[in-house]
């Protein structure tokens, strides 16, 4: 076997190893993007999903002491109950878009391991309602604090 062939063989081995690593990596860490309707149609327990929808109004429950967060994600056609352990992220709220990553639990809810609030590209113009809310918050804190 001449040198060129040896190097070629080496290259093939490396390429094959890389292809295998990529294949294994993809199959192990693939996350399927689904909408609530798609998930509800055919949920597979244990499969990794990324579920996107709007947090349904009136569904958000946050228990600070136990860090239990529960809400429902909806796409207008279907609504999926979601549970998570941990603080809701800053951009998270009812009526807002959210994407959660996790798996379907056989007990009939989506177990989220990660919440990605949808980053809205547009900023809202300053509105008085919001400002008043913050001012009140500051007042309460100042009166209460030191």
């Amino acid at each position: 076997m001449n040198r060129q062939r040896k190097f070629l063989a080496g290259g093939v081995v490396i390429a094959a190893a890389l292809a295998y690593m990529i294949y294994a990596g993809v199959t192990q860490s693939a996350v399927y993007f689904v909408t609530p309707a798609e998930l509800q149609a055919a949920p597979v327990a244990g499969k990794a999903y990324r579920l996107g929808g709007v947090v349904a109004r009136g569904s958000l429950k946050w228990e600070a002491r136990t860090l239990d967060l529960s809400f429902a994600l909806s796409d207008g056609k279907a609504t999926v109950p979601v549970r998570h352990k941990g603080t809701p992220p800053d951009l998270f709220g009812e009526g807002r878009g959210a994407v959660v990553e996790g798996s379907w639990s056989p007990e009939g809810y989506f177990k989220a391991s990660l919440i990605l609030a949808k980053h809205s590209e547009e900023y809202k113009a300053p509105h008085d309602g919001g400002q008043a809310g913050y001012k009140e918050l500051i007042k309460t804190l100042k009166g209460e604090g030191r």
Partner: protein
Amino acid sequence: MIPEVGGGAAFAALALAVWGAVAAAVGGRTGRVALVESAQHAALAVFVLVTACFALLTYAFLAFDFSVRYVATNTNLGTPFYYRITGVWGALEGSIILWTWMLALFTLLVILRHRESARELYPWVLTVMLAVIGFFLLVMTVAAPPFERLTPAPADGRGLNPLLEDTGMITHPVALYLGFTGLTVPFAFALAALIAGRVGDAWITLTRRWTIVAWYFLSLGLLIGGWWSYHVLGWGGYWAWDPVENAAFMPWLTATAFLHSVMIQERRRMLKLWNLALVILTFGLTIFGTFLTRSGVIASVHAFTQGAIGILFLSFLAVVLLTALGLLAWRWDALRAQGELDSILSRESAFLLNNVLLIAAAFTVFFGTVFPLLSEAVRGVKVSVGAPFFNQVNVPLFLSLVFLMGVGPLIAWRRASPNNLRRNFLLPVVAGVLAAAAFFTLGVRSALAVLALALAVFVAATIAVDFTRATRARLRMGERALPAMGGLLLRHNRRYGGFVVHLGILVITVGVMGSHAWSVQTETTLRRGEAAELAGYRVRFDGLTATEESNHFKVAGAFTVTNGRALDTLRPAKKFYPQQDSPIAYVDYRLGLKEDVYLVLGDFARDGSQATVKVQVNRLVSWIWIGGLVLTLGSLLAILPERKRAA
């Protein structure tokens, strides 16, 4: 009035850039010096005009000219002075100006430096650089006009994205863009070499330092980005394999490959085609990265801009790649290698393997980044691969690269004799094995961690072996120890600069490995006076305070951190910006060489009676920044002009 002047300047610059590119090309083809000189003048005028655009936009920011749409969307009356300046490049339009300006600056520097030294390539270099500038000016005038008016002009602007109100935001984009635009120089020389039919080594020798400069800025940009992510984004990490990060990482990988492969061409006249392809690929990846981040094709937390410029960038990318491929095909006969690989145990093959691994890493990053798009297009199902994919595939690649980092610089050219191997590697291998045993005895149980640490020690030992040997040789010549070492660094600054960069990478490797293997975290809700415990630390919640800053409200929690003795009071906060309907986290931390205590404030009761806090003890993260510093110093050493070697 001023915005119209700015818009006009951009149009004039575009016309001049096109003229310059054509004039230089015709001048290069016919040898008419006057045309090349005219192109030079055009390049100078483009620089002046783009500088004017930049200055006028900055002025509009400082003067709160909200009749300009870009100003109104990226600043408001409350934005502090400092961020009104950095806000200029806080979004798409301004970053395109900054990018164009840097390109024009690099073109000017190329003119100053290479006007006389590279006569045959020079006109074509000018053509390519001006053509690239022309493309960006096209984007600036057609797709993302920074001076567009907004009628009626609002009384106040929307404000800068609060995440960008950070000192990292002045340096991160500037460094990154200097890296990206700097890579245009070797690309222009490569194309010029192909067009002029001078595919020898001249273009490589001429652009060697340009490439190191660009690589240095790109590395700096990536490191500052990591630091920004760590201390601003508040998720407790520094690298998320986010498409935007990947977009900057891919050209870094291929540029790194290029820096190494040019050494083989210089020494052995091999890999001509490969080097041209690499530099073209690297430039293509910078354009592709801009396409990814600016077109909004992949939704990402970082992609704070979206525009209809995707098609423009994609077309430009296609033109660049097709032109380059055409030129490569045209010069195919001249690109035959002269040298040949002699043995697998040689420096050439170590470098070649390094290149293959770096390209493989770049490919995996590329694959993972575009995978959601591919799967959506091919199968109609959007599937993404996250951080686990990137880590799983890249860790073996990067550890192999670390290993080669020890082998490559010391192994003999052509064919390593058993004697050469023993002389260079016996000691380092012993050191590595001993280190593995030592770390295992010290209680490191993760196989990956032991391997990474042992490899780091092995590579450090090879550098030590080389440096001691070279110093000894000088001592025998009668020099004293310190002058001998300094002389080595300065006289062989490229080699030793490279070694220092390698040391920096080793330190970063240890930091990354440590933070992945040993960091711990917990999240809990505390009433006032209650404390959480993690990894020997006690974190006690002492209440909330609220303050009103110039453009936001800030609610901060006070947390006393102790580990047997009082350490610090950390104040992680949430910042409420009126223009944003949700708060921004403001993390607080206590950095240390061994570990950082890192607090993120979560939800809190409005009366200040309780707060949710995420406590992280992040191990060895500081070493990433220290390694970055070492890497920076090494690159600076390598950039210094090379001394003529004394006999």
